Every structure is written in structure tokens, then in C-alpha cells.
């Protein structure tokens, strides 16, 4: 077997791992195995646990339990991360059980679900974890046989010696557990992969399809009570007073607790808690800032018109390029706020005693949340445990531990195990929204070349951060500038799936489409030509690869039948890099009843080595449809601080009949894998908008498209 040497100094192993992320020190113990036919050993005291932690557990019969370190929100890491360990451990995938690890900062790093980074950061360390364990098993077998480890080989959980003798892992795990962690281990050549690159069905599939308890909402503890919380109905309001007489009269309501500007109704079942909350009578006081979306629209326009910007990147001289240009094209793009709308509403379990705080539930950022709870309750972090459940979606909402703070505060006051449950109305109106944003993009053209590019962002609170301005077309246009300005609002905003680029990609890629058309330039060739200029760049801030982006562009042209589509099919093109992944998408739009309908999206992705193809395709299909859906329908607004939508009767999410066919293609290479939870989403809106233009002759510059199209047709009627 071809093996690549990977040198790991034992002393530096933890250090290296803590930099690389993922999870580390491997270890064996027999304590846990998921199935009853796997028997724990008789005398576990014989084992030396001092140097080991239980990230890989191997039972006597050779069955393996692998703990998945990062939170699972539907992005598939609970399947994909253990696949990487199992590959290097060299065991059959059907001998592996997977369990979700709890928050354990001593042994894991970056236990976060966010930014499509779990696989990218975990790749090396997960491989080394598996390979290290494999080597220790080999060493143990070699010692037993009195041969050199190098004379032994492994396959499917079986070690074979030079004389043909063999032992399965379970037979030597006790000896292996006593051994020193080796200084260096070898990794498989990707051509040797047996698990990576093959479809592995979601490890929780049986529980999901039979309705077993899996999610935060399903978690129960003996004696647990339920909490439903009344919060200020408008951003900017505070609680003046409340009357809980009617709430307390509800069957099952135990008590009513005020904390800050919120009131929690505690009951012995969920319905009583919700009903009790509805019976609360509260008086609210308006603050000084009661903001409306119509005001935001003007404020953001004013920011773009003004001169008070922070410059995030500047190349050449944009003013000179614009002054000398034959033509300057400028467009403005507008997006609304967006709620996350995870299907599982926010919820969390909490229990506070004198000694400890126990928290269980769906959270994308357990470590940061624990720190927050420690500060809130003024307790040491060591006294707080957080266990993660499977999550009914994340999309960025569960990066924020606001709901965990709430349950910690309630549990501290009532001193009973308690489950906080948001209703859908709570979830949609107490959000951490994708901020409303406006982009103004201007480009200068001289002698048929793009000489300057100026991107200005105006966002509520904060949006773009300093990596984004180095994405394409940075490096391709000599005079280039990115400016940002913010308006500080009391409406809470934060990351939403593919933060920053989820709207920027639409704005820039729609702009390019229009710019190229005005220039009389081909949208494909012009992109390829611009990327050609980035090749060999010495700018270390440019992290995208012009070669890889060119490659997905060419593949998307081929796979989508670009330029050869049937009569009545209108195609829109986008190529985009974000979250370390290169993507090109082509949307096919047809007109039905005078309305553009998205029929198909062809998506070509370069995410390096494909760990789990079925999971990857699922992420791409979901990301594209999510991107199309929110671009078409996603809307959110505020009137004097009050959210304009509360539930799915008025808030429109894409449904089955509106979902386009998604055809995904993956570039085959041996490059280290990158993440897929987000990168398929941002290009979708632009691809649709560019196709809609071809179908209707109308340029879309604001989301949701359904509203923009309605306004355009109204204008036409008014004429």
C-alpha cells in the first residue's frame, strides 16, 4: 500500500491538533459500544487511561465507536467526519458506530458548525487520528508476534503479519491501549481510499425515519418542566408591567418568572406553558429608537451617497480609472432582512444546582455559549456542561446562544430542570436576522476593457468582513476598491447561511452580466479572460484559485448545454468562490403564465476530495434550492421595531412545487476537501436573475424577486 509519511511528534501532537482543529488524542476504551452484542471488558481497571481519551473506542469483537466532534445541523458532518477517521483506521464502515461528542475543550478544538469549515479544518487531524490508532494496533500485533511493525499490514480491521498470521483489532486493542502514541504515522494515498469517496447514508437515518428522540426538542429529563417566554413584541421596547392572573389560572402552569424585559411561564407541559404565555397581559414601553424598514432603506441609500466609508481593499487608483473611462456603469442592489426559520424552533434544556449547570440542546457554538453562561451566572466554566443534540437546521441561527442564556437564567431562578421552547412566532420575531443591505457597484470601461471596479456596501449593523473583498474580481481588475458603511440598529442581526456572500454574489454576478452585455462581451469568455489575469498573482490575500474557477466555468458550460438550450429555455450563468469552494451554476428559466419559473439549476463544484458523495449532492441540492427560494420569496421587514411576519401563513418559504431540478457535478481531484454547507447557495440567486433577464428583458436589482417582478409589471400597467 502506498503510504504518505506524516510526522507527528507526540509532545506536539496536541499542539498541532489544537491548531488544526477537529479533534484529537486518540484513545481506546471498552466502556461504550452502541449495540448490546458488543460486550465491555471485564476489568477496565487494567487499562492505562492516563494517556488516552475516548475518541475512538474499539470493542473486543472489533466493533468501533467513533465520536464526531462537531455539531450536526443537517450539513452531514456526523457522517463525514467519522468516515475520515475510519478510512485511516482501516476498518469496514459497517463496523462503525457514530456518536455525537459533547463539548470537550480539553480534547477537541473548534467544535463549531459554521462557515463550512468542519471538514476543511478537520481533514488532516481526523486522518492522523485514525492513522495513529491504526499504527498502535499494528505495533501491538507486531510485538505479540515478535516481528517488526513494518512487516505487518492492515485491511478491514484485520492485521496480517509476515507469516500470514492475522488478528482483528479487537484482539489486540488491550495491548495497543498500553502503548506509547507513535511519533509518526503514515497516511493513505487517496487512491487507496475505500470509505472516502463512497456514498455513506446519514448515520442517524434509522432514528430519523422511525421518529426516535434525536433533537433538542425531544430531550427529556425526569421532573422536567417547560418554559414559554414572552418577549418585547417590538425591537426597542421594554417591559413596563404585566399581569399574570389569567396565566396562572391555566391548568398546568406552575409559576411565572420575570427576567429582564421578558416573562417566562413555567408549566408541567408544553401546551400549558404556551397557553399561559398567551394569557399574560403586558404593558410595553417604546424606547427612543423604534425602527422601520422604510427608514432603513433611506438610511442605507444615504450611506451609499455619502463619503463615510471604511475601505477594506484598494488597488490602483479608482478615481483616475473612472475619470479616464469611456463609460462608467453603476447599479444599486437591495436586500431585505431574513429570518433563519430552522424547522426545529429554538429550544434548550437547562438545570442549575448549587454545584453545576447542565445544558443540553441544539447549539452550533457550544464553547462560546458556555463562556457566555459562565459570565451570566458568575460560575466557573468547569461547572458547566453542554451536550449537543442533533439539530433541526442551523443556518447560522444557532451560532447565537441567546436562547441558552435564557434557559440558564430561568433554570437558575426556578432551580428545576426546565426545557425552554420557542413557538414559531417566538422564533421568527425574536430572531438574529440576516441584515438588510444595499450594494452599489460601479465599473469603468475603456477601450473595451474593464479598468476599474468599485463596490460599496451599506448594511444594518455589520456585514462584510475583511476576507470577502479579496474574492473575485479582486486581482483581475487593476483599479479596485471595496468600501463599507454601517448603520447601527437595535434590531439584532447576524450570520445567515453563507454570511455576507448570500446576497453579495447575486449583486456582483448580476452586475457582471449587465456590464458584459453593455460591453458587448461574452459572459463566459470575459470571466475566463479576467481570471487569466489573476494567474501567478503574488498577492497572498487572494485565496481563490483562478485555475479552479476557470475549470468549473468550462465544466458548467459543457454540463448545462450553455448556448444550445431548447427554444423557450433561458439560461443565466454565475461563477463564484466562497467558503474555500469554487462553484459555477447555470439556471434554466421558462415563462409560464407570463411569470418566469426556475426549472433546473446545473451546479459544478470543486470542493477537493469528495468525502461522502451522497451527502455532498444533498448539500448542493439543498443549498441551490435554498438560494433560489430566498432570492425568489424571502422577505422580512419591521414597522416601528415590530417584525412584519410571524409564521408560515404569511412568510413564504420555497415549497416542493417551486423547487427546481438540481443537477450537480463535482470536479475530481486529490486536493484537500473543503466544506459544502454553504457554497452552493450564493450563486443561485444571480443565476436565476440572469436567466430571468433573458426571459423577460427585465433586470432584477432587489430581493425578493417575486416582489420586484410584481412592482415592474405594475409600473408597466401604469405606464
Amino acid at each position, binding site marked *: 500500500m502506498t503510504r504518505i509519511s506524516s510526522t507527528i511528534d507526540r509532545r506536539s501532537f496536541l499542539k498541532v491538533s489544537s491548531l488544526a482543529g477537529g479533534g484529537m488524542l486518540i484513545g481506546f476504551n471498552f466502556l461504550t459500544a452502541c449495540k448490546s452484542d458488543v460486550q465491555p471488558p471485564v476489568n477496565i481497571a487494567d487499562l492505562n487511561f492516563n494517556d488516552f481519551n475516548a475518541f475512538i473506542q474499539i470493542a473486543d469483537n472489533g466493533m468501533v465507536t467513533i465520536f464526531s466532534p462537531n455539531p450536526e445541523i443537517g450539513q452531514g458532518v456526523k457522517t463525514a467526519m467519522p468516515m475520515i477517521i475510519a478510512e485511516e483506521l482501516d476498518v469496514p464502515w459497517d463496523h462503525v458506530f457514530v456518536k455525537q461528542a459533547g463539548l470537550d475543550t480539553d480534547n477537541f478544538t473548534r467544535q463549531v458548525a459554521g462557515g463550512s469549515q468542519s471538514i476543511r479544518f478537520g481533514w488532516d487531524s481526523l486522518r492522523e487520528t485514525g492513522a495513529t490508532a491504526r499504527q498502535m494496533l499494528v505495533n501491538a500485533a507486531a510485538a505479540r508476534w515478535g516481528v517488526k511493525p513494518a512487516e505487518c499490514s492492515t485491511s478491514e480491521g484485520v492485521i496480517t503479519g509476515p507469516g500470514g498470521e492475522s488478528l482483528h483489532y479487537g484482539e489486540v486493542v488491550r495491548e495497543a491501549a498500553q502503548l506509547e502514541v507513535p511519533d509518526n504515522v503514515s497516511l493513505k494515498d487517496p487512491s487507496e481510499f475505500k470509505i472516502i469517496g463512497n*456514498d455513506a447514508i*446519514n448515520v442517524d437515518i434509522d432514528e430519523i425515519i422511525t421518529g426516535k428522540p434525536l433533537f433538542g426538542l425531544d430531550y427529556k429529563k425526569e421532573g422536567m418542566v417547560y418554559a414559554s417566554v414572552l418577549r418585547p413584541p417590538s425591537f426597542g421596547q421594554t417591559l413596563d408591567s404585566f399581569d399574570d392572573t389569567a396565566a396562572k389560572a391555566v391548568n398546568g402552569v406552575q409559576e411565572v418568572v420575570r427576567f429582564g424585559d421578558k416573562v417566562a411561564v413555567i408549566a408541567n407541559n408544553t401546551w400549558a406553558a404556551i397557553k399561559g404565555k398567551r394569557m399574560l397581559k403586558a404593558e410595553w414601553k417604546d424606547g427612543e429608537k423604534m425602527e422601520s424598514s422604510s427608514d432603513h432603506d433611506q438610511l442605507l441609500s444615504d450611506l451609499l451617497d455619502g463619503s463615510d466609508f471604511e475601505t477594506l481593499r484598494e488597488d490602483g487608483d479608482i478615481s483616475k480609472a473612472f475619470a479616464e473611462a469611456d463609460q462608467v456603469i453603476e447599479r444599486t442592489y437591495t436586500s431585505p432582512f431574513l429570518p433563519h426559520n430552522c424547522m426545529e424552533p429554538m429550544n434548550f434544556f437547562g438545570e442549575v444546582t448549587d454545584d453545576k449547570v447542565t445544558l443540553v440542546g441544539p447549539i452550533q457554538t457550544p464553547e462560546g455559549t458556555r463562556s457566555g453562561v459562565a459570565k451570566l451566572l458568575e460560575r466557573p466554566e468547569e461547572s458547566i456542561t453542554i451536550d449537543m443534540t*442533533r439539530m433541526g437546521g442551523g443556518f447560522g441561527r444557532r451560532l447565537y446562544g441567546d436562547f441558552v442564556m435564557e434557559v440558564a437564567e430561568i433554570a437558575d431562578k426556578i432551580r428545576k430542570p426546565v426545557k425552554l421552547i420557542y413557538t414559531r412566532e417566538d422564533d421568527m420575531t425574536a430572531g438574529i436576522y440576516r441584515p438588510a443591505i444595499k450594494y452599489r457597484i460601479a465599473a469603468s470601461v475603456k477601450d473595451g476593457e474593464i479598468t476599474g471596479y468599485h463596490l460599496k456596501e451599506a448594511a444594518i449593523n455589520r456585514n462584510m468582513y475583511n476576507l470577502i473583498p479579496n474574492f473575485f474580481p479582486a486581482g483581475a481588475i487593476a483599479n479596485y476598491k471595496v468600501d463599507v458603511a454601517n448603520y447601527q440598529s437595535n434590531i439584532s442581526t447576524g450570520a445567515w447561511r453563507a454570511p455576507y456572500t448570500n446576497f453579495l454574489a447575486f449583486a456582483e454576478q448580476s452586475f457582471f452580466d449587465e456590464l458584459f452585455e453593455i460591453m458587448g462581451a461574452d459572459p463566459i469568455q470575459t470571466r475566463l479572460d479576467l481570471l487569466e489575469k489573476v494567474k501567478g498573482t503574488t498577492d497572498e490575500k487572494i485565496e481563490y484559485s483562478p485555475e479552479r474557477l476557470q475549470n468549473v466555468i468550462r465544466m458548467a458550460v459543457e454540463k448545462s448545454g450553455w448556448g444550445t438550450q431548447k427554444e423557450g429555455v433561458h439560461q443565466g450563468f454565475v461563477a463564484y468562490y466562497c467558503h474555500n469552494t469554487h462553484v459555477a451554476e447555470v439556471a434554466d428559466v421558462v415563462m409560464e403564465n407570463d411569470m418566469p419559473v426556475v426549472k433546473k439549476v446545473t451546479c459544478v463544484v470543486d470542493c477537493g476530495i469528495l468525502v461522502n458523495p451522497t451527502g455532498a449532492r444533498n448539500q448542493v441540492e439543498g443549498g441551490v434550492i435554498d438560494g433560489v427560494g430566498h432570492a425568489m420569496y424571502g422577505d422580512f421587514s419591521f414597522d416601528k421595531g415590530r417584525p412584519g411576519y410571524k409564521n408560515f401563513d404569511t412568510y413564504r418559504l420555497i415549497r*416542493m412545487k417551486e423547487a427546481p431540478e438540481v443537477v450537480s457535478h463535482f470536479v475530481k481531484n486529490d486536493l484537500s476537501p473543503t466544506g459544502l454547507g454553504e457554497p452552493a447557495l450564493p450563486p443561485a440567486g444571480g443565476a436565476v436573475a440572469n436567466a430571468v433577464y433573458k426571459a423577460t428583458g427585465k433586470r432584477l436589482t432587489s430581493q425578493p424577486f417575486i416582489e420586484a417582478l410584481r412592482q415592474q409589471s405594475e409600473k408597466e400597467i401604469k405606464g
Partner: protein
Amino acid sequence: MPTYSLKVNGTTHQVEADADTPILWVLRDQLDLVGTKFGCGIAQCGACTIHLNGEAVRSCILTISQVTDQEITTIEGLSEKGDHPVQVAWKELDVPQCGYCQAGQIMTASALLDRNQNPSEAEIKQAMHGNLCRCATYNRIVKAVQKAANS
């Protein structure tokens, strides 16, 4: 508090609850059948779908007093070993992402196939349109329903 007689997955339970309690919360909190999910509370998302006398209904707006002594089936009772053709197809096609809405999707799909063993794609989409999937696994759901119909 009044007592109601409920027939859930072939077993009769006596449950104490207020008359206006949605059956969803009785199933989840009192009977420990948490496979039926809460999504919206107003019958707009389908996460709480159960079968009532074989028909797919939204348990979040049906009160306990409306379903007394009628046949209720939840995801836990759809099959003994998780091998209902719809469940098998869901597994073979690796449909779920987060998985939260999938019990509701499976209950809607299985009720559809009970009354129409060979639905067209349009009929599948019509029947499933009320079930939201925020991860947008819609295309795999259509394929899984077709696969189950053909099995």
C-alpha cells in the same frame, strides 16, 4: 381536568388534558411519542403530520377532544421495524439532511400511497406541497415517494 380515551398505534391510553390541548403535545409530552414534530402550530408546515383514521392530518391544530377513540397512527407506529416501503425508500435514497421535518413528510407520503398507489409526479407534488423542508430535500422526497410506489 377531563380524561380522554386515545387509540394511538393500536394501543388505548387514558389521558388527562384540557379539551383544547392539541394532540401534538399529548403525543409528545404525555405519551413520549416525540417523533411527531412541532414546527409552526398553525398547520402550515406539516412537521406534525399524523394519520387519523388513515388520513394525513396536522396534529398541531387537532385538539384531544376532536380525536377521542379514533385511530391515530404516528411515525412510531407506521411500521414495526421501520420497514414501511416509504421508510425503506427514504433510507435507500438518503433523503434527510437535518431530518427534523422528515417524519411529517413520511406520514404525508404514506397516506398518499394508501389512497393512490401509483401517483404521478404532479400528484406527489400536490400532496407534499404542504410539508416544508427548510433543508430543501424536496427532489429526493419526490424520488423516494416514486420508489416506494414502485416497490
